[in-house]
């Protein structure tokens, strides 16, 4: 165990790793602060640049972006009342209030410190849970993996977004997209539409750049009215120890909620941040201050969204199933480097897993330092004129897509998936469910077929094995519960209608 951490530290403290993590965290803070760039988009934009790197370094850098973006999001939430990332939406309430009262510097300081505390706590939670869970995961056979994939998709479809039916459609479309290309099981080409380029299927990296980054550019161009410029001189003022101690309840609430959301498939910290805000208010000694400039109202959501950066890696590292946008991009980076995510990572390539553990700790410290130093430059970039910004991003995604395999095909994929992603956002579909479908397509199908091969065609194998039976039952409940509730409400409404006459 300890030699593995030493191995990880050896990689994380190489000068190149430190440099790349610094770049990653700085870019994360800037991208997070920009309201047009969410954390996952900032990560997706860097994906093509990680190509030539050592996989361990690439993952550390991307984790750095993820971590930095969680703090960056609060900069614009506090200063211009616009969350830079969805995870910072809850910080707008008290953050902007504090800024109006002249305490913007203190609000930024609290966000930075509590974010760092949350981030570091989450790495320890990650280590504490992922290592034993990976041993459990090793015992999983094909039926369990099939059931886990279905369960993950069911959770994403029903918990993210408001519309279960549209969520399920999105997930199914992702699975369908994943079937194009060479069937991994028998080597037969499918749905290639006669194209040689499609033989290798839809490249996951290109799909994610399209669905996460290009769709956001399209949205900003077509619908957004932009955001305010940050005016005046702003600085960061770190809270004193006494003040920090007063925030401990809020931070504990943030850690608990962030851990739960990281483990369940969810929306990148946004839900955890809002629940933490509510719970911190309930447990606070001064609930009346919430909404009128409470430091606890920043501490709770900002701790929670940074906790998610670590705990979201747990399902990814142990089962190879990502539960958030950020984790999905980490998975794409692994595949880009030919690494199979899942429990065998811990045995086969411990330098990657333990390098990531140590690297995430380092990245959180870097966030504290850079967050303090890099406030001015981040503000300058938030104030860049939007046409320049989006033209630049468009150039980066198109060239980045080309560089994935040195051909035009991925550029087309990026444009088309970007258009699909934007349309889905606009009409209430669930982009994350589609990405998860694309990611899990192979896992679900291959394990379905493998299971039936083992059971000699007996479909009951999925239910006679306890873990897979339980997971599939949960998946069914997740999907059926909202439908049953709707039917019951309709019946009640119909029964009440004639009475009203």
């Amino acid at each position, binding site marked *: 165990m300890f030699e593995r951490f030493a191995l990880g530290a050896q990689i994380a403290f190489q000068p190149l790793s430190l440099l790349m993590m610094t770049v990653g965290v700085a870019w994360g803070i800037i991208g997070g602060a920009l309201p047009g760039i969410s954390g996952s988009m900032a990560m997706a934009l860097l994906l093509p640049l990680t190509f030539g790197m050592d996989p361990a370094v690439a993952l550390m850098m991307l984790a750095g972006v993820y971590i930095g973006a969680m703090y960056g999001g609060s900069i614009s939430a506090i200063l211009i009342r616009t969350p830079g990332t969805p995870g910072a939406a809850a910080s707008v309430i008290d953050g902007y209030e504090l800024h109006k009262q002249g305490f913007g510097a203190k609000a930024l300081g609290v966000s930075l410190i509590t974010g760092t505390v949350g981030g570091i706590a989450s790495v320890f939670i990650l280590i504490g849970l992922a290592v034993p869970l990976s041993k459990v995961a090793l015992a999983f056979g094909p039926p369990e993996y099939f059931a886990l994939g279905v369960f993950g998709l069911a959770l994403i479809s029903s918990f993210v977004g*408001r519309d279960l039916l549209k969520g399920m459609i999105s997930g199914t479309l992702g699975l369908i997209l994943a079937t194009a290309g060479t069937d991994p099981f028998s080597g*037969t080409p499918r749905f290639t539409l006669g194209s040689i380029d499609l033989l290798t299927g839809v490249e996951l990296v290109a799909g994610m750049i399209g669905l996460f980054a290009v769709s956001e550019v399209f949205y900003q161009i077509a619908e957004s009215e932009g955001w305010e410029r940050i005016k005046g001189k702003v600085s960061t003022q770190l809270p004193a120890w006494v003040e920090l101690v007063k925030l401990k309840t809020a931070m504990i609430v943030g850690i608990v909620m962030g851990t739960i959301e990281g483990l369940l498939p969810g929306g990148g910290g946004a839900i955890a941040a809002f629940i933490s805000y509510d719970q911190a208010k309930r447990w606070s000694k001064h609930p009346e201050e919430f909404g009128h400039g409470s430091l606890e109202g920043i501490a709770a959501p900002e701790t929670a969204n940074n906790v998610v950066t670590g705990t979201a890696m747990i399902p990814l590292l142990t089962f190879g199933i990502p539960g958030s946008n950020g984790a999905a991009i980490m998975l794409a980076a692994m595949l880009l480097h030919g690494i199979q995510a899942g429990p065998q990572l811990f045995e086969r390539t411990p330098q990657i897993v333990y390098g990531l553990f140590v690297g995430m700790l380092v990245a959180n410290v870097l966030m504290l330092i850079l967050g303090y130093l890099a406030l001015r430059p981040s503000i300058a970039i938030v104030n860049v004129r939007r046409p320049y910004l989006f033209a630049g991003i468009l*150039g980066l995604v198109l060239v980045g897509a080309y560089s994935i395999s040195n051909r035009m095909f991925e550029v*087309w994929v990026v444009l088309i998936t970007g258009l699909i992603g934007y349309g889905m956002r606009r009409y209430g579909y669930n982009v994350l469910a589609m990405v998860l479908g694309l990611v899990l397509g192979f896992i679900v199908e291959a394990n379905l077929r493998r299971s039936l091969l083992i059971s000699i065609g007996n479909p009951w194998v999925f239910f006679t094995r306890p873990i897979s039976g339980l997971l599939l039952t949960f998946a069914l409940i997740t999907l059926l519960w909202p439908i049953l509730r709707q039917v019951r409400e309709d019946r009640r409404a119909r029964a009440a209608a004639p009475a009203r006459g």
Partner: protein
Amino acid sequence: MRRADLLVGLGLLVFAGLYFSQSFSIVRGFASDRLGPAFFPRLLALALAVMAVALLVRAASGRSDPEPPPRMKIGVFIAVLVLATAYVFLLPRVGFLFATPVLLGAVIWLLGMRQWPGLIATAAGVTLALYVVFVRMLHVLLP
């Protein structure tokens, strides 16, 4: 949303049908694989068709989300889309160093920035930065 749901529902139904029919042109794999490469796609096609019908029924019975989709600057959006598509078409023919600044300049202009010095400087600067990063540092062979 109702009209959009009806249109999307119909589109998905047609797509599910096409996808299902395409699955018949797959050559069957080795015999020990009971399900074969066409089973899972057919399952997905059926599931999608059922969901598309549910979407249609919901929209037809007036139970869609009543909120209309947000306003959109359709002209600018389509112009950017056409430009980006033209760029992807022309990139292999005219080369990166020529096509990129033109695309970027046009997008900046379309998004409402009419200050020529800034526009030209950004278009050229971003192209140069991309060139340095991808060609010089990552050794990508751009067209």
